[in-house]
Protein backbone atom coordinates (compact mmCIF):
# COMPACT_ATOMS: atom_id res chain seq x y z
CA UNK A 1 0.00 0.00 0.00
CA UNK A 2 2.69 2.42 1.07
CA UNK A 3 4.88 1.78 -1.93
CA UNK A 4 1.92 2.25 -4.22
CA UNK A 5 1.19 5.62 -2.68
CA UNK A 6 4.77 6.70 -3.05
CA UNK A 7 5.08 5.36 -6.56
CA UNK A 8 1.89 7.12 -7.59
CA UNK A 9 3.04 10.34 -6.06
CA UNK A 10 6.44 10.09 -7.70
CA UNK A 11 4.96 9.30 -11.08
CA UNK A 12 2.45 12.08 -10.70
CA UNK A 13 5.10 14.58 -9.73
CA UNK A 14 7.20 13.37 -12.61
CA UNK A 15 4.47 14.14 -15.06
CA UNK A 16 3.82 17.42 -13.39
CA UNK A 17 7.50 18.18 -13.28
CA UNK A 18 8.93 17.38 -16.64
CA UNK A 19 7.96 15.40 -19.67
CA UNK A 20 11.16 13.46 -19.60
CA UNK A 21 10.50 12.12 -16.13
CA UNK A 22 7.36 10.49 -17.41
CA UNK A 23 9.52 8.12 -19.35
CA UNK A 24 12.04 7.60 -16.59
CA UNK A 25 9.41 6.91 -13.95
CA UNK A 26 7.44 4.68 -16.28
CA UNK A 27 10.55 2.80 -17.33
CA UNK A 28 11.63 2.32 -13.77
CA UNK A 29 8.26 0.98 -12.74
CA UNK A 30 8.14 -1.36 -15.72
CA UNK A 31 11.62 -2.72 -15.07
CA UNK A 32 10.89 -3.26 -11.41
CA UNK A 33 7.65 -4.98 -12.24
CA UNK A 34 9.32 -7.33 -14.72
CA UNK A 35 12.06 -8.06 -12.21
CA UNK A 36 9.57 -8.84 -9.50
CA UNK A 37 7.51 -10.96 -11.86
CA UNK A 38 10.58 -13.07 -12.53
CA UNK A 39 11.66 -13.44 -8.95
CA UNK A 40 8.47 -13.20 -6.94
CA UNK A 41 5.50 -13.82 -9.24
CA UNK A 42 3.19 -14.80 -6.40
CA UNK A 43 3.75 -11.58 -4.52
CA UNK A 44 3.28 -9.53 -7.68
CA UNK A 45 0.02 -11.31 -8.33
CA UNK A 46 -1.18 -10.61 -4.81
CA UNK A 47 -0.20 -6.96 -4.91
CA UNK A 48 -1.34 -6.12 -8.43
CA UNK A 49 -4.72 -7.66 -7.78
CA UNK A 50 -5.14 -6.06 -4.40
CA UNK A 51 -7.71 -3.41 -5.12
CA UNK A 52 -6.50 -1.20 -2.25
CA UNK A 53 -3.04 -1.00 -3.79
CA UNK A 54 -4.35 -0.28 -7.26
CA UNK A 55 -6.72 2.39 -5.99
CA UNK A 56 -3.94 3.98 -3.92
CA UNK A 57 -1.60 4.13 -6.88
CA UNK A 58 -4.07 5.40 -9.42
CA UNK A 59 -5.76 7.75 -6.98
CA UNK A 60 -2.54 9.44 -5.96
CA UNK A 61 -1.36 9.62 -9.52
CA UNK A 62 -4.58 11.20 -10.73
CA UNK A 63 -4.76 13.65 -7.85
CA UNK A 64 -1.31 14.95 -8.60
CA UNK A 65 -1.58 14.88 -12.34
CA UNK A 66 -5.12 16.10 -12.79
CA UNK A 67 -4.60 19.83 -12.17
CA UNK A 68 -1.69 19.99 -14.54
CA UNK A 69 -3.26 17.76 -17.13
CA UNK A 70 -6.31 19.99 -17.10
CA UNK A 71 -4.10 22.89 -18.06
CA UNK A 72 -1.88 21.09 -20.50
CA UNK A 73 -3.91 18.72 -22.54
CA UNK A 74 -6.39 21.12 -24.07
CA UNK A 75 -3.55 23.43 -24.95
CA UNK A 76 -1.31 21.10 -26.84
CA UNK A 77 -0.70 17.49 -27.54
CA UNK A 78 2.26 15.62 -26.16
CA UNK A 79 5.41 15.93 -28.26
CA UNK A 80 4.00 18.56 -30.59
CA UNK A 81 6.95 20.74 -29.72
CA UNK A 82 9.58 18.05 -29.94
CA UNK A 83 11.94 18.96 -32.72
CA UNK A 84 14.34 16.07 -32.29
CA UNK A 85 15.16 14.17 -35.40
CA UNK A 86 16.71 10.73 -35.11
CA UNK A 87 20.09 12.19 -35.98
CA UNK A 88 20.02 14.95 -33.38
CA UNK A 89 18.80 12.56 -30.71
CA UNK A 90 21.33 9.90 -31.67
CA UNK A 91 24.31 12.18 -31.09
CA UNK A 92 23.34 12.30 -27.43
CA UNK A 93 23.71 8.55 -27.14
CA UNK A 94 26.22 7.54 -24.50
CA UNK A 95 29.26 5.75 -25.80
CA UNK A 96 29.61 2.25 -24.40
CA UNK A 97 33.03 2.84 -22.89
CA UNK A 98 31.67 5.83 -20.99
CA UNK A 99 29.83 3.52 -18.64
CA UNK A 100 33.12 2.59 -17.05
CA UNK A 101 34.65 6.05 -17.10
CA UNK A 102 35.57 7.78 -13.86
CA UNK A 103 33.49 10.65 -12.54
CA UNK A 104 33.98 13.87 -14.46
CA UNK A 105 33.42 16.01 -11.40
CA UNK A 106 36.71 14.78 -9.93
CA UNK A 107 39.52 17.18 -10.89
CA UNK A 108 41.93 14.24 -10.88
CA UNK A 109 40.15 12.86 -13.93
CA UNK A 110 39.10 16.20 -15.36
CA UNK A 111 41.57 16.06 -18.24
CA UNK A 112 40.54 12.52 -19.12
CA UNK A 113 36.88 13.40 -19.53
CA UNK A 114 37.33 16.93 -20.86
CA UNK A 115 40.46 16.94 -22.98
CA UNK A 116 41.82 13.52 -23.77
CA UNK A 117 38.47 11.86 -24.16
CA UNK A 118 35.96 14.69 -24.58
CA UNK A 119 32.42 14.20 -23.48
CA UNK A 120 29.78 14.33 -26.12
CA UNK A 121 26.62 16.29 -25.57
CA UNK A 122 24.34 14.36 -23.24
CA UNK A 123 26.95 12.06 -21.83
CA UNK A 124 27.55 13.92 -18.62
CA UNK A 125 24.85 12.03 -16.83
CA UNK A 126 26.47 8.69 -17.13
CA UNK A 127 29.99 9.49 -16.16
CA UNK A 128 29.19 9.17 -12.56
CA UNK A 129 28.96 5.53 -11.71
CA UNK A 130 31.04 4.72 -8.72
CA UNK A 131 33.55 2.12 -9.80
CA UNK A 132 33.89 1.05 -6.17
CA UNK A 133 30.16 0.43 -5.95
CA UNK A 134 30.20 -1.35 -9.29
CA UNK A 135 32.99 -3.62 -8.09
CA UNK A 136 31.05 -4.33 -4.95
CA UNK A 137 27.93 -5.12 -6.94
CA UNK A 138 29.86 -7.50 -9.19
CA UNK A 139 31.18 -9.23 -6.12
CA UNK A 140 27.70 -10.47 -5.39
CA UNK A 141 27.94 -12.59 -8.54
CA UNK A 142 30.82 -14.53 -7.05
CA UNK A 143 28.88 -15.10 -3.88
CA UNK A 144 26.29 -17.08 -5.77
CA UNK A 145 23.62 -14.56 -4.91
CA UNK A 146 22.45 -13.83 -8.42
CA UNK A 147 19.05 -15.36 -7.84
CA UNK A 148 18.43 -13.22 -4.78
CA UNK A 149 19.24 -10.08 -6.68
CA UNK A 150 17.89 -10.84 -10.14
CA UNK A 151 15.44 -7.96 -10.15
CA UNK A 152 18.16 -5.49 -9.21
CA UNK A 153 20.50 -6.79 -11.88
CA UNK A 154 17.68 -6.39 -14.35
CA UNK A 155 17.22 -2.85 -13.16
CA UNK A 156 20.92 -2.13 -13.57
CA UNK A 157 21.23 -3.67 -17.03
CA UNK A 158 17.87 -2.41 -18.22
CA UNK A 159 18.65 1.12 -17.13
CA UNK A 160 22.09 0.92 -18.68
CA UNK A 161 20.68 -0.31 -21.99
CA UNK A 162 18.32 2.66 -22.00
CA UNK A 163 21.12 4.96 -20.97
CA UNK A 164 23.18 4.10 -24.03
CA UNK A 165 20.76 5.91 -26.30
CA UNK A 166 19.34 5.15 -29.70
CA UNK A 167 22.16 3.22 -31.35
CA UNK A 168 25.23 1.57 -29.92
CA UNK A 169 28.19 3.95 -29.92
CA UNK A 170 31.73 2.74 -29.40
CA UNK A 171 34.90 4.78 -29.59
CA UNK A 172 33.06 7.97 -30.47
CA UNK A 173 31.07 6.57 -33.41
CA UNK A 174 27.99 4.50 -34.14
CA UNK A 175 28.82 0.84 -34.40
CA UNK A 176 27.82 -0.12 -37.95
CA UNK A 177 27.38 -3.66 -39.25
CA UNK A 178 28.01 -4.26 -42.97
CA UNK A 179 25.03 -5.87 -44.73
CA UNK A 180 24.09 -6.64 -48.36
CA UNK A 181 22.73 -3.69 -50.37
CA UNK A 182 19.36 -5.36 -50.83
CA UNK A 183 18.95 -5.56 -47.07
CA UNK A 184 20.05 -1.94 -46.66
CA UNK A 185 17.45 -0.73 -49.13
CA UNK A 186 14.77 -2.66 -47.28
CA UNK A 187 15.91 -1.14 -43.98
CA UNK A 188 16.03 2.32 -45.56
CA UNK A 189 12.43 2.00 -46.75
CA UNK A 190 11.27 0.79 -43.34
CA UNK A 191 13.25 3.57 -41.73
CA UNK A 192 11.62 6.26 -43.83
CA UNK A 193 8.21 4.80 -43.22
CA UNK A 194 8.62 4.75 -39.45
CA UNK A 195 10.66 7.85 -38.75
CA UNK A 196 9.65 10.01 -41.69
CA UNK A 197 13.35 10.72 -42.29
CA UNK A 198 15.69 9.65 -45.04
CA UNK A 199 18.05 6.82 -44.07
CA UNK A 200 21.37 8.52 -43.18
CA UNK A 201 23.75 8.53 -46.14
CA UNK A 202 26.81 7.67 -44.06
CA UNK A 203 25.12 4.43 -43.04
CA UNK A 204 24.93 3.21 -46.64
CA UNK A 205 25.75 -0.50 -46.87
CA UNK A 206 25.49 -0.81 -43.10
CA UNK A 207 22.93 -0.96 -40.35
CA UNK A 208 23.36 0.45 -36.86
CA UNK A 209 22.81 -1.57 -33.71
CA UNK A 210 19.42 -0.25 -32.61
CA UNK A 211 19.00 -0.19 -28.86
CA UNK A 212 15.63 -0.32 -27.06
CA UNK A 213 15.45 3.46 -27.17
CA UNK A 214 15.94 3.34 -30.93
CA UNK A 215 12.89 1.17 -31.37
CA UNK A 216 10.93 3.34 -28.96
CA UNK A 217 11.91 6.44 -30.94
CA UNK A 218 10.70 4.91 -34.19
CA UNK A 219 7.51 3.39 -32.86
CA UNK A 220 6.31 5.65 -30.03
CA UNK A 221 5.85 9.22 -31.21
CA UNK A 222 5.84 10.95 -27.80
CA UNK A 223 9.17 9.34 -26.98
CA UNK A 224 10.78 11.64 -29.55
CA UNK A 225 10.49 14.28 -26.88
CA UNK A 226 13.22 12.57 -24.88
CA UNK A 227 16.78 13.80 -25.15
CA UNK A 228 20.07 13.11 -23.42
CA UNK A 229 19.78 9.45 -22.71
CA UNK A 230 22.37 9.57 -19.95
CA UNK A 231 19.42 10.54 -17.76
CA UNK A 232 18.43 6.91 -17.63
CA UNK A 233 21.33 6.59 -15.22
CA UNK A 234 18.70 7.50 -12.65
CA UNK A 235 17.41 3.97 -13.06
CA UNK A 236 20.75 2.21 -13.39
CA UNK A 237 22.15 3.83 -10.30
CA UNK A 238 19.24 2.64 -8.22
CA UNK A 239 20.02 -0.96 -9.17
CA UNK A 240 23.71 -0.44 -8.67
CA UNK A 241 23.30 1.08 -5.24
CA UNK A 242 21.10 -1.70 -3.96
CA UNK A 243 23.36 -4.40 -5.38
CA UNK A 244 26.35 -2.79 -3.74
CA UNK A 245 24.44 -2.61 -0.50
CA UNK A 246 23.40 -6.26 -0.67
CA UNK A 247 26.91 -7.35 -1.48
CA UNK A 248 28.40 -5.35 1.34
CA UNK A 249 25.80 -6.71 3.69
CA UNK A 250 26.79 -10.25 2.74
CA UNK A 251 30.50 -9.50 3.10
CA UNK A 252 30.28 -7.72 6.42
CA UNK A 253 27.70 -9.96 8.01
CA UNK A 254 30.14 -12.49 9.45
CA UNK A 255 32.65 -10.05 10.83
CA UNK A 256 32.84 -8.45 14.23
CA UNK A 257 31.60 -4.92 14.64
CA UNK A 258 34.91 -3.06 14.34
CA UNK A 259 35.86 -4.91 11.17
CA UNK A 260 32.53 -4.02 9.62
CA UNK A 261 33.08 -0.42 10.58
CA UNK A 262 36.56 -0.41 9.00
CA UNK A 263 35.23 -2.07 5.85
CA UNK A 264 32.32 0.34 5.58
CA UNK A 265 34.53 3.36 6.20
CA UNK A 266 37.06 2.25 3.60
CA UNK A 267 34.41 1.75 0.95
CA UNK A 268 32.72 5.00 1.84
CA UNK A 269 36.01 6.84 1.45
CA UNK A 270 36.65 5.09 -1.87
CA UNK A 271 33.29 6.26 -3.20
CA UNK A 272 33.79 9.75 -1.86
CA UNK A 273 37.23 9.89 -3.43
CA UNK A 274 35.75 9.02 -6.80
CA UNK A 275 33.29 11.85 -6.50
CA UNK A 276 35.61 14.35 -4.92
CA UNK A 277 35.10 17.79 -6.44
CA UNK A 278 37.99 19.57 -4.73
CA UNK A 279 39.81 21.66 -5.68
CA UNK A 280 36.75 23.14 -7.36
CA UNK A 281 37.57 23.90 -10.97
CA UNK A 282 34.33 25.36 -12.22
CA UNK A 283 33.04 27.84 -9.71
CA UNK A 284 31.90 31.19 -11.12
CA UNK A 285 31.56 34.42 -9.21
CA UNK A 286 28.40 36.36 -10.04
CA UNK A 287 30.57 39.49 -9.96
CA UNK A 288 32.32 38.20 -13.08
CA UNK A 289 28.99 37.86 -14.88
CA UNK A 290 28.18 41.58 -14.84
CA UNK A 291 27.93 43.02 -18.36
CA UNK A 292 28.01 46.66 -19.34
CA UNK A 293 25.67 46.05 -22.26
CA UNK A 294 22.94 44.86 -19.88
CA UNK A 295 23.25 48.04 -17.84
CA UNK A 296 23.07 50.14 -21.01
CA UNK A 297 19.93 48.36 -22.23
CA UNK A 298 18.30 48.57 -18.81
CA UNK A 299 18.94 52.33 -18.76
CA UNK A 300 16.98 52.96 -21.98
CA UNK A 301 13.67 54.76 -21.47
CA UNK A 302 11.65 52.04 -23.19
CA UNK A 303 11.83 48.28 -23.23
CA UNK A 304 12.88 46.93 -26.61
CA UNK A 305 13.08 43.64 -28.45
CA UNK A 306 16.60 42.23 -28.68
CA UNK A 307 18.40 39.20 -30.05
CA UNK A 308 21.84 37.92 -29.16
CA UNK A 309 24.24 36.24 -31.55
CA UNK A 310 25.58 33.69 -32.18
CA UNK A 311 22.47 31.68 -31.39
CA UNK A 312 24.57 28.63 -30.57
CA UNK A 313 26.02 30.62 -27.67
CA UNK A 314 22.92 32.50 -26.58
CA UNK A 315 20.96 29.25 -26.46
CA UNK A 316 22.42 28.34 -23.09
CA UNK A 317 21.89 28.97 -19.39
CA UNK A 318 23.43 32.40 -19.06
CA UNK A 319 21.07 33.99 -21.57
CA UNK A 320 18.20 33.78 -19.11
CA UNK A 321 20.40 34.99 -16.27
CA UNK A 322 21.27 38.14 -18.22
CA UNK A 323 17.57 38.74 -18.90
CA UNK A 324 17.13 39.55 -15.22
CA UNK A 325 19.54 42.45 -15.66
CA UNK A 326 18.66 43.97 -19.05
CA UNK A 327 14.91 43.32 -18.72
CA UNK A 328 14.29 43.43 -22.48
CA UNK A 329 12.11 41.22 -24.63
CA UNK A 330 14.19 38.53 -26.28
CA UNK A 331 13.61 36.86 -29.63
CA UNK A 332 15.94 34.12 -28.48
CA UNK A 333 15.89 32.11 -25.27
CA UNK A 334 17.03 28.86 -23.77
CA UNK A 335 15.06 25.68 -23.41
CA UNK A 336 15.83 21.99 -23.82
CA UNK A 337 12.75 21.78 -25.98
CA UNK A 338 12.45 25.15 -27.76
CA UNK A 339 9.01 26.45 -28.67
CA UNK A 340 7.84 25.35 -32.06
CA UNK A 341 7.51 28.93 -33.30
CA UNK A 342 11.16 29.63 -32.51
CA UNK A 343 12.36 26.34 -33.95
CA UNK A 344 10.64 27.21 -37.22
CA UNK A 345 12.30 30.60 -37.64
CA UNK A 346 15.68 29.65 -36.25
CA UNK A 347 17.17 28.57 -39.60
CA UNK A 348 16.50 32.07 -40.96
CA UNK A 349 17.77 33.73 -37.79
CA UNK A 350 20.97 31.74 -38.12
CA UNK A 351 21.70 33.46 -41.44
CA UNK A 352 22.49 36.76 -39.75
CA UNK A 353 23.34 39.28 -41.21
CA UNK A 354 21.49 38.36 -44.41
CA UNK A 355 18.70 40.52 -45.83
CA UNK A 356 16.23 37.73 -45.11
CA UNK A 357 17.26 37.68 -41.46
CA UNK A 358 16.97 41.45 -41.20
CA UNK A 359 13.47 41.29 -42.70
CA UNK A 360 12.47 38.65 -40.18
CA UNK A 361 13.98 40.52 -37.24
CA UNK A 362 12.21 43.69 -38.31
CA UNK A 363 8.92 41.87 -38.60
CA UNK A 364 9.43 40.55 -35.06
CA UNK A 365 9.93 44.10 -33.79
CA UNK A 366 13.63 43.70 -33.01
CA UNK A 367 15.47 46.91 -32.20
CA UNK A 368 18.86 45.80 -30.87
CA UNK A 369 21.20 43.03 -31.92
CA UNK A 370 24.00 41.91 -29.59
CA UNK A 371 26.91 40.10 -31.19
CA UNK A 372 29.34 38.27 -28.90
CA UNK A 373 32.94 38.15 -30.09
CA UNK A 374 35.01 35.30 -28.73
CA UNK A 375 38.68 34.86 -27.99
CA UNK A 376 40.38 34.11 -31.28
CA UNK A 377 37.96 36.19 -33.36
CA UNK A 378 38.57 39.46 -31.57
CA UNK A 379 41.30 40.64 -33.92
CA UNK A 380 39.62 39.72 -37.17
CA UNK A 381 36.07 40.79 -36.27
CA UNK A 382 36.44 44.54 -37.09
CA UNK A 383 37.97 43.83 -40.49
CA UNK A 384 35.56 41.16 -41.67
CA UNK A 385 32.33 40.40 -39.80
CA UNK A 386 31.79 44.00 -38.69
CA UNK A 387 32.15 45.34 -42.23
CA UNK A 388 29.75 42.71 -43.48
CA UNK A 389 27.16 43.72 -40.88
CA UNK A 390 27.55 47.45 -41.44
CA UNK A 391 27.23 46.99 -45.19
CA UNK A 392 23.50 46.87 -44.55
CA UNK A 393 22.04 50.33 -44.39
CA UNK A 394 19.42 49.15 -41.92
CA UNK A 395 22.06 48.38 -39.28
CA UNK A 396 23.80 50.96 -37.09
CA UNK A 397 26.60 50.32 -34.62
CA UNK A 398 25.57 51.61 -31.19
CA UNK A 399 28.56 50.58 -29.14
CA UNK A 400 31.29 48.15 -28.27
CA UNK A 401 31.31 46.73 -24.74
CA UNK A 402 34.38 45.06 -23.27
CA UNK A 403 32.26 42.46 -21.48
CA UNK A 404 34.56 39.50 -21.04
CA UNK A 405 32.62 36.58 -19.61
CA UNK A 406 33.92 33.06 -20.17
CA UNK A 407 35.20 32.78 -23.71
CA UNK A 408 33.51 36.04 -24.77
CA UNK A 409 35.89 38.96 -25.09
CA UNK A 410 33.60 41.79 -26.17
CA UNK A 411 30.07 42.53 -27.33
CA UNK A 412 29.02 44.70 -30.25
CA UNK A 413 25.60 46.31 -29.98
CA UNK A 414 23.73 47.17 -33.18
CA UNK A 415 20.46 48.97 -33.75
CA UNK A 416 18.09 47.96 -36.53
CA UNK A 417 16.69 50.97 -38.37
CA UNK A 418 13.15 50.38 -39.51
Amino acid at each position, binding site marked *: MQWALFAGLALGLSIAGAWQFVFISGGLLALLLVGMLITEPKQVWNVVFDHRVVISFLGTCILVVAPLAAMMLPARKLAVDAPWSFGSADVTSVHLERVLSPSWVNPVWWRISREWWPLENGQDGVVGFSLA*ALGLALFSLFRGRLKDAASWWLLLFGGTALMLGLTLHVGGHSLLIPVPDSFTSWVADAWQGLSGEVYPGHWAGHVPVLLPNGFAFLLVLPYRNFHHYGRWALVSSLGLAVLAA*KSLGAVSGNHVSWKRAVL*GTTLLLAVLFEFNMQPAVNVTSTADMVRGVDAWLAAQPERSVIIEYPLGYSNSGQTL*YYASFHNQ*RMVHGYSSVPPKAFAEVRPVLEQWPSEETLDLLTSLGTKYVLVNVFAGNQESFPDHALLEILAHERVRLVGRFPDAV*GSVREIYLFELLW
Partner: protein
Amino acid sequence: MRFGSRLGIREDAGPILGRRWAKHAIALLLFAAVYGFLTYPVMTRPKYWVWGRPFEDAFESIWYLEWYKQALFDLRVSPLFQPDIFYPHGWDLRFAILPPPVSHDARTVDSCARVSCSLQLRLAVFLRLCRLRHLLASSENQWKLVGRLFGRCSLFILPAARDLPGRASELSAGLNVAAVACLWGSSTV
Protein backbone atom coordinates in the same frame (compact mmCIF):
# COMPACT_ATOMS: atom_id res chain seq x y z
CA MET B 1 7.47 10.49 32.02
CA ARG B 2 10.94 11.89 31.74
CA PHE B 3 11.76 14.46 29.08
CA GLY B 4 14.03 12.16 27.10
CA SER B 5 11.41 9.45 26.91
CA ARG B 6 8.88 11.88 25.50
CA LEU B 7 11.31 12.59 22.68
CA GLY B 8 11.66 8.90 22.01
CA ILE B 9 15.15 8.75 23.46
CA ARG B 10 16.00 5.78 25.58
CA GLU B 11 17.09 7.01 28.95
CA ASP B 12 18.79 3.74 29.79
CA ALA B 13 20.87 3.57 26.64
CA GLY B 14 24.14 3.85 28.48
CA PRO B 15 27.01 6.00 27.15
CA ILE B 16 25.94 8.89 25.00
CA LEU B 17 27.41 7.42 21.80
CA GLY B 18 25.43 4.26 22.34
CA ARG B 19 22.13 6.05 22.07
CA ARG B 20 20.12 5.91 18.92
CA TRP B 21 19.71 9.64 18.47
CA ALA B 22 23.44 10.12 18.95
CA LYS B 23 24.18 7.76 16.09
CA HIS B 24 21.86 9.67 13.82
CA ALA B 25 23.49 12.88 14.95
CA ILE B 26 26.93 11.45 14.17
CA ALA B 27 25.75 10.49 10.69
CA LEU B 28 24.38 13.99 10.14
CA LEU B 29 27.58 15.60 11.34
CA LEU B 30 29.70 13.32 9.22
CA PHE B 31 27.78 14.14 6.08
CA ALA B 32 27.62 17.82 6.97
CA ALA B 33 31.41 17.76 7.13
CA VAL B 34 31.66 16.00 3.78
CA TYR B 35 29.14 18.44 2.34
CA GLY B 36 31.14 21.35 3.63
CA PHE B 37 34.38 20.05 2.21
CA LEU B 38 33.02 19.19 -1.21
CA THR B 39 31.03 22.39 -1.68
CA TYR B 40 33.76 24.79 -0.62
CA PRO B 41 33.98 27.69 -1.56
CA VAL B 42 30.34 27.95 -2.73
CA MET B 43 28.98 27.24 0.73
CA THR B 44 30.89 30.17 2.21
CA ARG B 45 29.19 32.78 0.01
CA PRO B 46 26.20 31.15 -1.66
CA LYS B 47 24.87 34.43 -2.95
CA TYR B 48 28.03 35.28 -4.84
CA TRP B 49 29.43 31.96 -5.98
CA VAL B 50 27.75 29.59 -8.38
CA TRP B 51 28.84 26.06 -9.05
CA GLY B 52 29.16 25.90 -12.81
CA ARG B 53 30.64 27.74 -15.73
CA PRO B 54 28.94 30.83 -17.18
CA PHE B 55 27.21 28.95 -19.98
CA GLU B 56 25.87 26.16 -17.81
CA ASP B 57 22.38 25.57 -16.46
CA ALA B 58 23.10 26.83 -12.96
CA PHE B 59 22.49 30.36 -14.17
CA GLU B 60 19.26 29.30 -15.80
CA SER B 61 18.16 27.99 -12.40
CA ILE B 62 18.80 31.36 -10.84
CA TRP B 63 16.67 33.03 -13.49
CA TYR B 64 13.84 30.56 -12.85
CA LEU B 65 13.70 31.46 -9.19
CA GLU B 66 13.87 35.15 -9.96
CA TRP B 67 11.06 34.80 -12.49
CA TYR B 68 8.85 32.76 -10.18
CA LYS B 69 9.26 35.36 -7.47
CA GLN B 70 8.60 38.23 -9.86
CA ALA B 71 5.57 36.57 -11.44
CA LEU B 72 3.94 35.50 -8.20
CA PHE B 73 4.68 38.42 -5.91
CA ASP B 74 5.31 41.44 -8.15
CA LEU B 75 3.41 40.97 -11.40
CA ARG B 76 0.74 38.62 -10.01
CA VAL B 77 0.66 36.60 -13.21
CA SER B 78 1.04 32.91 -13.93
CA PRO B 79 4.69 31.88 -13.67
CA LEU B 80 4.02 29.16 -16.23
CA PHE B 81 4.15 31.59 -19.13
CA GLN B 82 6.92 34.09 -19.82
CA PRO B 83 5.88 36.50 -22.58
CA ASP B 84 9.28 38.18 -23.00
CA ILE B 85 11.39 35.12 -23.78
CA PHE B 86 11.16 33.74 -27.34
CA TYR B 87 9.28 36.94 -28.14
CA PRO B 88 6.76 37.57 -29.68
CA HIS B 89 5.22 34.14 -29.07
CA GLY B 90 6.46 33.85 -25.52
CA TRP B 91 7.62 30.82 -23.63
CA ASP B 92 5.24 28.24 -22.26
CA LEU B 93 7.09 27.06 -19.18
CA ARG B 94 4.76 24.14 -18.72
CA PHE B 95 6.83 22.56 -21.45
CA ALA B 96 10.16 23.68 -20.13
CA ILE B 97 11.51 21.82 -17.14
CA LEU B 98 9.86 22.15 -13.78
CA PRO B 99 7.00 24.31 -12.60
CA PRO B 100 7.40 26.18 -9.34
CA PRO B 101 5.26 24.05 -7.02
CA VAL B 102 7.95 21.42 -7.00
CA SER B 103 10.90 23.76 -6.75
CA HIS B 104 10.48 24.44 -3.09
CA ASP B 105 14.09 23.72 -2.39
CA ALA B 106 14.92 27.22 -3.45
CA ARG B 107 17.99 27.78 -1.39
CA THR B 108 19.81 24.77 -2.69
CA VAL B 109 18.92 25.44 -6.26
CA ASP B 110 19.65 29.10 -6.01
CA SER B 111 22.99 28.96 -4.38
CA CYS B 112 24.37 25.54 -5.13
CA ALA B 113 22.54 24.35 -8.21
CA ARG B 114 25.49 22.25 -9.20
CA VAL B 115 26.46 21.01 -5.80
CA SER B 116 25.84 17.36 -6.04
CA CYS B 117 26.62 16.81 -2.42
CA SER B 118 23.44 18.40 -1.21
CA LEU B 119 21.60 15.56 -2.79
CA GLN B 120 24.10 13.03 -1.58
CA LEU B 121 23.78 14.33 1.91
CA ARG B 122 20.04 14.19 2.04
CA LEU B 123 19.76 10.85 0.34
CA ALA B 124 22.44 9.29 2.42
CA VAL B 125 21.08 10.50 5.71
CA PHE B 126 17.56 9.62 4.79
CA LEU B 127 18.36 6.18 3.56
CA ARG B 128 20.43 5.59 6.60
CA LEU B 129 17.40 6.39 8.68
CA CYS B 130 15.44 3.96 6.55
CA ARG B 131 17.75 1.29 7.88
CA LEU B 132 18.20 -0.24 4.49
CA ARG B 133 20.07 -3.24 5.74
CA HIS B 134 17.23 -4.20 7.99
CA LEU B 135 14.89 -4.17 5.04
CA LEU B 136 17.30 -6.08 2.87
CA ALA B 137 17.65 -8.80 5.46
CA SER B 138 14.43 -10.36 4.32
CA SER B 139 13.45 -10.85 0.72
CA GLU B 140 9.84 -10.50 1.76
CA ASN B 141 10.60 -6.93 2.55
CA GLN B 142 11.76 -6.15 -0.97
CA TRP B 143 8.40 -4.65 -1.74
CA LYS B 144 8.81 -2.23 1.08
CA LEU B 145 12.28 -1.47 -0.10
CA VAL B 146 11.12 -0.80 -3.63
CA GLY B 147 8.45 1.51 -2.38
CA ARG B 148 10.71 3.40 -0.08
CA LEU B 149 13.62 3.68 -2.44
CA PHE B 150 11.57 4.63 -5.44
CA GLY B 151 9.03 6.73 -3.67
CA ARG B 152 11.16 8.53 -1.19
CA CYS B 153 14.18 8.89 -3.41
CA SER B 154 11.99 10.38 -6.08
CA LEU B 155 10.53 12.78 -3.59
CA PHE B 156 13.99 13.82 -2.65
CA ILE B 157 15.13 14.00 -6.22
CA LEU B 158 12.26 15.98 -7.60
CA PRO B 159 12.62 19.05 -5.44
CA ALA B 160 16.18 19.32 -6.58
CA ALA B 161 15.38 18.19 -10.08
CA ARG B 162 15.38 21.70 -11.38
CA ASP B 163 18.94 21.02 -12.20
CA LEU B 164 19.10 17.31 -11.90
CA PRO B 165 17.80 15.78 -15.11
CA GLY B 166 21.07 16.09 -16.94
CA ARG B 167 23.05 15.41 -13.85
CA ALA B 168 22.24 11.84 -13.10
CA SER B 169 25.78 11.41 -11.95
CA GLU B 170 24.83 13.28 -8.83
CA LEU B 171 22.18 10.74 -8.12
CA SER B 172 24.55 7.89 -8.85
CA ALA B 173 26.97 9.33 -6.38
CA GLY B 174 24.29 9.92 -3.82
CA LEU B 175 22.85 6.48 -4.02
CA ASN B 176 26.19 4.81 -4.02
CA VAL B 177 27.31 6.74 -1.01
CA ALA B 178 23.99 6.08 0.63
CA ALA B 179 24.16 2.37 0.03
CA VAL B 180 27.55 2.11 1.64
CA ALA B 181 26.80 4.56 4.39
CA CYS B 182 23.59 3.07 5.58
CA LEU B 183 25.09 -0.37 5.74
CA TRP B 184 27.98 0.95 7.66
CA GLY B 185 25.62 2.74 9.98
CA SER B 186 23.17 -0.06 10.45
CA SER B 187 25.88 -2.54 11.21
CA THR B 188 26.55 -0.70 14.42
CA VAL B 189 22.99 0.28 15.35
